[in-house]
């Protein structure tokens, strides 16, 4: 296999393809990619574009997360049924990495070398995608819209020019939550319950900007160790009466169970990633006899954040579109928040394809996202932050309180950025837009 040098890729491959295929001219191409001949990059033909993604379809991280690519696939099928983007059908190849970074390397290799994908889209996980970020950038394959809130997808454009985040980063989420607590619950004794990796670290950085002096306890759990009783006991011993928790959904259920056992009743505030009421409710359902309220009521009174409308907002035009797409193109099962997540992400990728124009190249796609990304309408409540200097995703969220599985807004949509950027109310009107008639952007 040839190991491409970054920057020379489009020219080299353009030459190679032209020589090998002497393909029919497409015309109207901009001069940057060598000119003449068919689209130059792997994964692109006149009527298809092939993309890939790796997700935990099996293993401990699979619950919930394995539904994301099914949502994205359904949306791509919807777009394909309307004729695709610029006449190209989207082919989406999904690989299972079991949330194991070693496997991620293997399957990503397959995607790049064997399936020759144009880009990876929506691939999931911080440790998993971190293990292939440099490889993809070296190979010149865009790593788009990574499903993770780590900062590393967007804050280092110089070293990873082809990597883009999608969801709000954990630091911004921490800042927004921290400021709200400082303003609305200034007397609370704050305890932090953190996953011991980027998730907890980034979030703690954000939270501490606002409530450093209110924090009385910090407990970290290791993902995989399901016994969190010592951590919850630690929070309880320091008499924390407001727990800000940055953890995955299974740990939301586990922490609720342990709190029940030790008689601990603080106000819980779970970050978006761990608060899906349907999933957590289904995990806790069986314990209803044991005095945990079952199903969607399991997290009543718990606070969390929201950055895309979820299944509880049945009046939202975006959710109505997702429901329609899922009914027509979806596979087994119901529409869930994870499928909506996948669809919302897929929508943004289709916008990027639209913006990149008829002559699709990797370079052109990246440029299109950097230039126009902040302007795109879409389901996200706050705009993307994409630019030539930042590849961070959605810029904000609102704080909600859960009641019967439905999030009641406590704030308007707040936007911010990493570092000491201010937190302001979003004035872009992003939360109020609605999808085009046929559900395909740009048409």
């Amino acid at each position, binding site marked *: 296999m040839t190991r491409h040098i970054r920057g020379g890729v489009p020219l080299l491959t353009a030459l190679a393809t032209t020589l090998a295929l002497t393909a029919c001219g497409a015309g109207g191409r901009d001069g940057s990619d060598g000119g003449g001949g068919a689209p130059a990059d792997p994964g692109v033909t006149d009527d298809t574009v092939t993309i890939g993604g790796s997700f935990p379809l099996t293993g401990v991280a699979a*619950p919930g997360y394995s539904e994301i690519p099914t949502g994205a696939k359904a949306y791509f099928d919807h777009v394909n049924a309307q004729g695709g983007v610029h006449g190209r059908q989207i082919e989406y190849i999904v690989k299972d990495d079991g949330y194991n970074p070693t496997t991620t390397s293997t399957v990503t290799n397959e995607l790049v070398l064997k399936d020759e994908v144009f880009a990876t889209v929506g691939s999931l996980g911080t440790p998993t995608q971190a293990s292939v970020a440099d490889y993809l950038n070296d190979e010149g394959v865009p790593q788009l819209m990574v499903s993770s809130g780590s900062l590393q997808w967007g804050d280092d454009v110089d070293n990873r020019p082809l990597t883009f985040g999608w969801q709000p980063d954990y630091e911004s989420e921490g800042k927004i939550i921290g400021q709200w607590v400082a303003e609305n619950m200034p007397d609370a004794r704050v305890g932090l319950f953190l996953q011991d990796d980027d998730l907890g670290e980034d979030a703690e950085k954000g939270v501490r900007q606002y409530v450093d002096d209110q924090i009385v306890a910090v407990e970290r759990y290791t993902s995989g160790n*399901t*016994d969190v009783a010592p951590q919850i*006991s630690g929070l309880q011993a320091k008499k924390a009466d407001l727990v800000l928790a940055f953890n995955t959904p299974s740990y939301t259920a586990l922490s609720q169970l342990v709190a029940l056992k030790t*008689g601990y009743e603080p106000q819980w505030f779970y970050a978006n990633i761990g608060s899906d009421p349907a999933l957590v409710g289904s995990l806790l359902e069986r314990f209803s006899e044991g005095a945990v309220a079952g199903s969607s009521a399991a997290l009543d009174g718990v606070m969390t954040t929201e950055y895309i409308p979820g299944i509880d907002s049945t009046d939202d035009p975006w959710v109505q579109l997702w429901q329609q797409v899922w009914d027509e193109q979806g596979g087994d099962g119901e529409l869930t928040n994870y499928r909506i997540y996948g669809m919302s992400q897929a929508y943004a990728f289709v916008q990027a394809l639209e913006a990149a124009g008829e002559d699709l190249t990797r370079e052109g796609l990246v440029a299109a996202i950097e230039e126009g990304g902040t302007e795109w309408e879409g389901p996200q409540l706050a705009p993307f932050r994409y630019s030539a200097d930042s590849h961070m995703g959605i810029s904000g969220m609102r704080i909600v309180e859960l009641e019967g599985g439905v999030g009641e807004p406590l704030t308007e949509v707040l936007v911010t950025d990493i570092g000491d950027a201010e937190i302001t109310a979003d004035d872009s009107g992003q939360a109020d837009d609605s999808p085009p008639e046929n559900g395909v952007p740009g048409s």
Partner: protein
Amino acid sequence: MQQFLNTALTGLTLGMVYAAFALALVLIWRSTRIVNFAQAPMAMTTTFVALVVIDAGFSYWLGFVAALLSGLVLGAVLERVVVRPVEGKAEINAVILTLGLFIVLHGLAAVVFGNRYRSFPAPFGLEGLSVGGTTIALNGFGIFTIVSVLLVMALLVALFRFTDVGLRMRASAFNQEVARLLGVKVGSMLTLGWALASLVGSLAGLLIAGGSLVHPSYMDSVVVFGFVAAVLGGLDSPLGAVVGGLVLGLSLSFVSGYVGSQLVALAALVILMLVLTLRPGGLFAQAPERRV
């Protein structure tokens, strides 16, 4: 003070589960001289059997009994069909075989029962008991765990020490040839050993699952800790397994609560190293007498 008490109580309950698992390992070791790495997925499989029964609308206890019985059968069948061909060969063969079983059962369970987290009910309330106005981290199910593990330990000690069957099982494990000459049906004894061990393993699976979440790999951490507990106790002594389980459960709970949860696995290995360095045969072993 409350944190100390709660950490200790959590450690105690968890230690009892490790002990139950270690008991299963000890049982199989005493009756067949094999370390069974497939114990964890075997227990996981039978726990899922219980879940299927409970999901079908039957009571928790029916599921409980179904899991124990299917454990008994699973152990016997695996011994007869899979393990029998390698018995009497080099020890490493059996070890590799059980590792293979580990992977196969894992895969099968994922195919048959699905790969997602599911909640497993508990027969007693999950709320902690109230003592003098404060809630302590011990609930009805925790007490049930402690009592049932102690009971199983007592039964095992009685089996090996006071019954004819126990003696025959030990004899056939110790030296098949001699046992056979003395009229012991070695084959049946080995099958019985596997069946009983699998039953005790199933109990451990049910105890750790109760009031928590299960998925095909939920027993994987228990296999490591249960193994450490069994080795601490000397692999040969039921009492040692229980003491080993308790030592491990309590220390790991305190490490997790007061030092950091990322050090739990490391702490388990440090304890193992210390014990093996200071008392190579384990805390309760009578190893020297066994050297031939």
